[in-house]
């Protein structure tokens, strides 16, 4: 039908200019509007290769504080790019309002249009719609907050020396994956408020910490460590907040928060930096949990929008062919035994699932009706919107991975148990295996499985001030070798000895201490 219509492409060839970009954007905006995609305003920045590498190196923060690790990142990116191991910047987009997306000047016209469709309408609407982003991030204030963070850290460097700040940041970075309360709704970051209340907070925080530590009796000297003597300390603690029982009263999973509020020896500026790293970790937290969905959603929309551009006669065959080639490369999934295999490609998996939801809505088979009675036959636009808004990777896969996608990708489940001689194929893409494969794949994306579960269980506020953490181990998976450098960093922040105990089903499997202790001291 559309093929018969006279094609009047907006442009031909591969050269672009701002005028063309604006016209394509207007066209994409019109289509996005037609599909009711809800987006932040777009801020599209055209940049050079080097600037793109900069952006990569600073994990996509448009304004970053200075730290050697970003320099290392830059060198790694630059090296890979120069050796041709890595194509740069299919897209880089920042969860902010307006939503900042980068276009590289070397890109062809097709690439620019594709990136606009993918980032400025796909990712953008995901940032605005998905519940994790809505809960955990405040897109309108992130850039201001980053500016605040950069200024504050620069000031600290001036006042306290680059090295002191660097060491502190090293330690915070080691723990930044543990800077989030998973089960508590956070307060969004607001730069204005941060700057305004910062002094206040410094003073307040310090008094809080002082209160906490004031109840400590003199270092243990015989009798005073007896339980009875604790009650005598009640003058300092009339409410009994700190007498008896453990502190904290419940295990704390947000290690950075616990450090910020409770570490006895940190200076106020150090607490503020801990807080900055924690707030940024919170900002990136949703991204770590929605890789498959986010990329899948963006691919789904660039595919849909590009096809519409073609159907409406706004692009020619040449551009479309170039697009299809590029699209195919992005959603390519090498098999497990291919030399190019490097895990499951989130673009491929996410795209396949979203496309399949649409298919199930429009042309359901009997199998689909059985597996997805609520989805089959519904209007696809509402259904994919629902899926995008209310899930994260783990639950999204659990809910929407269909037998067809498992068959198409030929997914199979292997159990790797170091107590067994061989690996065992537990389930494959067949009637008996679908549920097990899907369950396992969903779990594979759960943060709680990907990262060791570690919590603060006790700060010995009446004892030697040591900090004890528990690692809840499952399936006998031990901590990696990096545990010692990390608890060393933790000890630097805490200021007193740190103990980490690995537990599985109530049994202690291993203890780690920093500073390293003699074994006979272990209690």
């Amino acid at each position: 039908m559309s093929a018969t219509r006279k094609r009047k492409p907006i442009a031909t060839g591969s050269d672009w200019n701002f005028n063309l970009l604006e016209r394509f954007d207007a066209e994409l905006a019109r289509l996005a509007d037609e599909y009711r995609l809800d987006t932040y305003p777009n801020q599209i920045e055209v940049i050079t290769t080097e600037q793109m590498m900069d952006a990569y190196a600073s994990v996509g923060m448009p304004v970053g504080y200075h730290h050697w690790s970003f320099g290392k990142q830059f060198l790694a990116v630059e090296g890979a790019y120069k050796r041709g191991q890595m194509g740069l910047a299919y897209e880089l987009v920042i969860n902010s309002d307006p939503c900042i997306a980068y276009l590289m000047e070397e890109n062809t016209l097709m690439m620019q249009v594709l990136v606009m469709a993918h980032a400025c309408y796909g990712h953008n609407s995901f940032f605005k719609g998905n519940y994790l982003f809505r809960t955990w991030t405040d897109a309108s204030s992130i850039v201001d907050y980053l500016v605040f963070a950069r200024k504050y850290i620069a000031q600290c460097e001036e006042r306290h020396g680059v090295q002191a700040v660097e060491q502190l940041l090293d330690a915070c970075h080691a723990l930044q994956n543990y800077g989030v309360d998973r089960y508590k709704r956070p307060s969004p970051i607001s730069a204005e408020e941060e700057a305004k209340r910062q002094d206040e907070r410094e003073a307040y925080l310090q008094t809080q910490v002082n209160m906490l530590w004031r109840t400590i009796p003199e270092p243990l000297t015989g009798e005073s460590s007896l339980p009875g003597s604790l009650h005598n300390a009640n003058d300092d603690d009339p409410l009994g907040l700190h007498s008896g029982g453990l502190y904290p009263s419940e295990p704390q999973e947000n290690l950075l928060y616990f450090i910020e509020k409770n570490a006895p020896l940190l200076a106020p500026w150090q607490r503020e930096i801990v807080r900055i790293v924690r707030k940024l970790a919170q900002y990136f937290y949703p991204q770590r949990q929605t890789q498959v969905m986010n990329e899948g959603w963006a691919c789904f929309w660039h595919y849909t929008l590009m096809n519409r551009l073609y159907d409406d006669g706004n692009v020619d065959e040449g551009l479309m062919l170039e697009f299809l080639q590029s699209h195919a490369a992005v959603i390519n999934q090498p098999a497990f035994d291919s030399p190019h295999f490097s895990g499951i490609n989130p673009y491929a998996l996410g795209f396949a699932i979203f496309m399949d939801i649409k298919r199930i809505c429009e042309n359901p088979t009997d199998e689909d009706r059985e597996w997805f009675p609520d989805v089959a036959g519904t209007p696809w636009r509402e259904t994919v919107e629902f899926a995008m808004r209310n899930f994260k990777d783990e639950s999204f896969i659990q809910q929407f991975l269909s037998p067809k996608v498992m068959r198409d990708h030929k997914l199979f489940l292997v159990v790797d148990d170091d107590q067994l001689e061989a690996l065992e194929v537990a389930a494959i893409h067949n009637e008996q295996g679908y549920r097990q494969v899907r369950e396992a794949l969903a779990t594979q994306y759960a943060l709680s499985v990907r990262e060791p579960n570690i919590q603060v269980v006790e700060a010995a506020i009446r004892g030697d001030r040591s900090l004890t953490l528990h690692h809840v181990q499952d399936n006998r998976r031990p901590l990696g070798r990096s545990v010692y450098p990390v608890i060393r960093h933790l000890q630097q922040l805490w200021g007193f000895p740190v103990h980490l105990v690995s537990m599985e089903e109530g049994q202690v499997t291993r203890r780690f201490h920093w500073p390293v202790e003699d074994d006979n001291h272990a209690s």
Partner: protein
Amino acid sequence: MTYFIDRRPNAKHKSAVNRQRFLERYRKHIKRSVEEAVNRRSITDMERGEKISIPAKDISEPVFQHGPGGARNIVSPGNKEFVAGDKIRRPSGQGGGSGAGEGGASNQGEGVDEFAFTLSREEFLEFVFDGLELPHLQRKPLKSLEEVKMVRAGLSKDGVPSRISITRSMREAYARRIAMRAPIKRALKEAHEALEAEERKDPVLRNPARIAELKTEIERLEKRIAGVPFIDTYDLRYHQLSAQPQPSNQAVMFCVMDVSGSMTQNHKDIAKRFFLLLYLFLEKHYEKVELVFVRHHTAAREVSEEEFFYSRETGGTIVSSALNLVNKIIEKRYPVGQWNLYVAQASDGDNWDDDSNICRDLLIKQLMPQLQYYAYVEITPHDHQSLWHEYASVVKEFPERFAMRQIIEAGDIYPVFRELFKRRLSQS
């Protein structure tokens, strides 16, 4: 709503600070690699960056992660022949096995052993010359300078037509015209007023003679106004140039080498590296560096670089022949006022017995006063001979500008070079 912003003109090198921080943090590692590279590299090869590897464990940013072991479930794509219940032999080696497609950040810690990156040429040389200072870097003092540069220095009334400043000349002319016409115009105005007053009078009272007189006066004045020249020789202004002495920013480096039979190719390679380091060093500090190669056995000759390093000669050794030639070349082509002069000499220490003291005199009396620096390296594992001892007395005369060291093998060059050119803090 979409805004387009062109960021391309914006600040480049946004990561420069972070990159510097990184290089600073791993200074020790990088320096070690750079020093190895200097010793290893072929001679023509200094003009590029260097790949640096740092053990990944020294550079990792640790986070809590799972180690190998325990039981885990792995879902992978691309099943071909497996069915449920199949047993697969554990892939040997590489912890986790090729099937471990964890889609995430686990067990990467063990996989990569080296973090490799490339220093740019500038950064590489920066590390090579780290802590080194060019001897007597101060530009040649102004008083002895002969090199001048013509710079504009205001305007003058004399000059050649090609340097006329048209705007200034026209402005002068305009001013002169105003000045010259003003009194005439005033007189003319008065005459007009008088004439008018006369003509307004009652015809009976008019004085025809007075009117005629005023009319001729007006005519005369108008002629005078017309006669003021539009432009005059006085108006002309010329751009003036004045000669300003220029600090010399060019250097010439004499490479002097003994090619007598006792110098083997190995000796020459060592010497070459030394010359090369000096050359790179000079090149960093001067806009222009010229090289002059002088080789000698019993007689000295100026040769091309190729010939200098690779052609073979035999015969005895007379060092003074080379020094004489250098002196002649300086006189002829490199006047002291315009060039910073450096001499680097390499030899195995052999010299004709009676020649060494001639060399000493030649150096002290003629060469050293003109030179910025003289570096002598003796490539020999043996005891020093007369040349070394004579040179030692030159060092006494010019401790700041004459340096000598002994080199035994290639690896010594760099340390010796560093020692020769290290920042002179403790000296003097």
